[in-house]
């Protein structure tokens, strides 16, 4: 369903430090539903925004384990169970010879989990998003830093939020509609 109405209020900053400061102050005022948009990663900003536990490493570890076990036992199954042939007098379970493939599969599956996991957690791909409705937002991928307080925040009041942001030395404040 297509939602309408106000998505949030967005403030634009020229320098990363200002953005970080702004985030801190609005969180002190108790706002929780917000996100910051920057042209490059900024140390600690996520934590400022209340991001705590990062599950991604666990996913990657899982991937590695799956790859390793799957890789080895596939070879074991093929050479010992399914097709036990005398190959140059070598034992059916020539485990040392199975290590390279095991290793490669470990890496492969872990890497796939890392990338797909990252995208999934970030909810990407998502070509359209309300923030894109603001023309100025183009600069988020160039040289501007944005903070958007979202309307679903229980304490969200359009005017108060506007005033709060004005105090933070922004170079512009915009209303973000769900639909242009």
């Amino acid at each position: 369903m297509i939602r309408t109405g106000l998505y949030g209020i967005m403030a634009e900053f020229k320098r990363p430090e200002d953005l970080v400061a702004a985030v801190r102050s609005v969180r002190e005022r108790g706002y929780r539903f917000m996100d910051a948009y920057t042209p490059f990663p900024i140390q600690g900003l996520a934590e400022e925004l209340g991001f705590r536990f990062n599950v991604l490493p666990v996913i990657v570890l899982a991937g590695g384990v799956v790859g390793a076990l799957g890789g080895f036992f596939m070879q074991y199954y093929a050479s010992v169970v399914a097709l036990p042939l005398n190959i140059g007098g070598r034992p059916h379970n020539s485990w040392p010879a199975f290590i390279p493939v095991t290793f490669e599969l470990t890496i492969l599956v872990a890497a796939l989990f890392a990338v797909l996991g990252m995208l999934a957690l970030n909810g990407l791909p998502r070509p359209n998003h309300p923030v894109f409705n603001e023309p100025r937002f183009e600069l988020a991928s160039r040289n501007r830093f944005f903070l958007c307080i979202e309307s679903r925040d229980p304490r969200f009041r359009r005017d108060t939020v506007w005033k709060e942001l004005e105090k933070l030395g922004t170079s512009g404040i915009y209303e973000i509609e769900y639909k242009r």
Partner: protein
Amino acid sequence: MLRGETEFWRTVNEYNGEFNGLQNGTDEVTPGTVPNRREFLAWMGNSFALSGILYGLSGCTSAPPEKIVPYVRPPEDVVPGKPQYFATAMPFSGYGIGLIAQSNLGRPIKIDGNPYHPASLGASDAIAQSSVLGLYDPDRAQAIASSGIISTWHSFAAALSMELIAARADSGAGVRILTETVTSPTLAWQLNRFLNQYPQARWISYEPFGGDNERGGTRLAFGTELDTQFRFENANVILALDSDFLSDGPAHIRHSKDFSSRRRIAARSDSMSRLYAAESVMTITGAMADHRFPVSSMEIDGIARAIAARCGVQGIPLPDSTRWPWLDLVVADLQREARHSLVIAGPQQPPAVHALVHAINDRLGSIGNTVIFTDPVAAHLGNQLESLKLLTDEMDSGRVDTLIILSGNPVYTAPADFEFSRHLDKVPFKARLGLYSDETSARCQWHIPESHFLESWGDVRAYDGTASIIQPLINPLFEGKSAIELMSVLLGETPQAGYDILRDYWGQHFNDFESSWQQSVRDGIVIGSAAPLRSVRIRKDFHVPDAPVQAASDPASLELVFRSDPCIFDGRFANNGWLQELPKPLTKLTWDNAALISPEKANQLNCANGDVVEIHNGERAIRAPVWILPGHALNSMTVSLGYGRTHAGQTGNGHGFNTYAIRKSNAIWVVPSARIRKTGDRMSLACTQTHQNMEGRDNVRVMTLADYIHNPDSEGHAETGEETGSLYPRFPETKYAWGMSIDLASCMGCNACVAACQAENNIPVVGKEEVERGREMHWIRIDTYFQGSPQNPGSYFQPVPCMHCEDAPCEVVCPVGATTHSSEGLNEMTYNRCVGTRYCSNNCPYKVRRFNFLEYSNFDSARLKLVANPEVTVRSRGVMEKCTYCVQRINRARIVAEEQDRSLRDGEIVTACQAACPADAIVFGNIHDEKSRVSVLKSQPRNYSLLPELNTRPRTTYLARLTNPNPEIARGR
């Protein structure tokens, strides 16, 4: 042939970019060139004949209508998939070699020796092995042709009888019949009857490699023409004077059998014969010799005289023999062994030498023991060369008006100075019976396709006179006629089938006809038909003509020796792809002949391999590429005949140079002094072993008999790799474990095994260009190494099939498991699974694997499919292949054994190479049965395996080469 420049590759198929593997010709005409009428007719002929064959095979009509007798089983159990075996015989330059032919559903596909036959004793040679391919050769003449136009048997018979009516008037004064050497009793009987009908007619027989010299020798020595036979099994010391008795002559297979029986030492008490060889060109006989002396062919006369003088032959002055320091010791050795000694001279030596040799043997007392005599087996006596000369003179003076040529190819093989072809043109009526429409047929208005010996009835005598009935295995593929069928027309009889003619003749000689006939046909020999021995005495007036004056040795001129080609003989097998691609012993050349010279002479002439020289014999000259052969006599050059064919067929045409062009009647074997000139041109030769130096490695291990007796373990067991441990647990042992033992003491590098393997395993022919690229496909190769001084090196042969390693390096690296190990130890290839990474070949230290780099097998020429062994997969492009230990034979035997609910017996399974080997060097069997022959051999002290340090644990092992040198002569003199 990739480039397809040489036109005989350029069939329509290849024109369309499709590789045409088994290059023995195909059915198409050369595209782009409009076929002349002759080609066109021949082509149409092919297609018709072809449809004929296919029909014949598809129906059950291919077996001859006459009753033929299976060798092994009664005919009623003709089971599809079960091969049948029939005894027959191959006429080879007149003399018979007894064979057993394997027939699958009416197709003869494999040949082996007939154990009952004296010239074979079950063994065979490369030429016999390849004869099946000759049967299906698409280039064979396929229609009776009258000056190029397809005609019929009847119109020929008519034309012939017209001639004969005319001839009757002058009782055949103008009628001549030219044959090869004839031993066929039936044919001789017919010819003689013909000569009785036409007293003035004459019968001439000519062979380019006939026995004139031997027979001349007996005339000089004993006053009469005799055939000489040798009993090598009785000889303790043998002196071969320019004699390659292991590969020359109608008895060479028997010689190999007998000789090798005295070279394989099982118990240390066994005595071993000693072979001295004095020869110009290195032959396999010389390679087997314990002492080899390179001397020019002309020197032999002097040597023979010196020996004769020392042995006290009357009337021979003691010549100066300081040139041959070894001579006294050899004579002493011969005299020590007295009647167990044997001296033999080669067919290219003049009658004088043969006479001297007879006298020497007489003095040594070996006559009757190692040398025996019989009346000539050939039906036609007299000097062949002289009679051919007479014929050409008669043709020249127009006295010949009817000439019937029964096989043979005189236009190509007659001495150059006879100018046979020019004189032939003066003969009004010429008819030629021949397998191919060749150089001779091209000049005769009548050509009658001859039927191959595998498709016609006939008979032939072996070197010792034993007669064999030649029984056909298949109806004539084309309208072929046999010589006896043609003769019956000449005799004015109502045309008869060969079968009836044969029975007519033998009917007069068998008392209980049917049973004798049955037995003779079944066994392949006529019992008691061998020629009786003749006791001989040196004639009182024994005297040999003086030696010819030695040629002045100016460096630019050499003695020139003519030899038959080890593969295509006198050229008659030039269109046989198997023989063309067979690496010639010692030189390892394929597809070409070359002028062989010694390394020093090469330096003097400043020639390298492949440099083209001009060879002048008087006014005649040819251009030939040089090939350097270690151990060749210094002032001598050897050229082989049989190449440079123009009408051989698509396979044989245009390879090598035609040596007959400088072979003149005054010096038919050896030209005392031929002028050599380097031209500066080069020619590429296809050699399968470019490196014949062992590089100080011990691939071939050699020990003297003395060492073997005193210190047997010096070679061999020490390193079979058996006692070196393995990290891996052994796989459970099974009932059978197949293994092979190859005895290097008896292997003489004759190539029989290579050809046999090619026939048995459908191995494709790849052609000269591919061989030059190093892509020959033979599953077993004969490595030839030279060791020591290039003037007179030791030379060793080593057949190398797959080693079937127990810990095979090839198997481990195959990514798809296409090569695996069977429970019985076979290293197996699964062609269907192979993707062609070729890693297995790289990882095979013995390099026995072969790869189909292109589409080598012939899937196009239907006639060539007929020769394929139905029990062996025909491999396609992009897959690896190699020796399988003839797994199809193992399984066939296993099925029989299981039917009879018993286990396999030792010797029940015989690989193709083993069956062919005339030296019994190869033995195959179950190595888990310690009583099996192979186990016994492998337990010998001289057993060793190749590259044991790699610990591949090969199932194929070798018995070290043994030599028996005369301790008084330093090795290599």
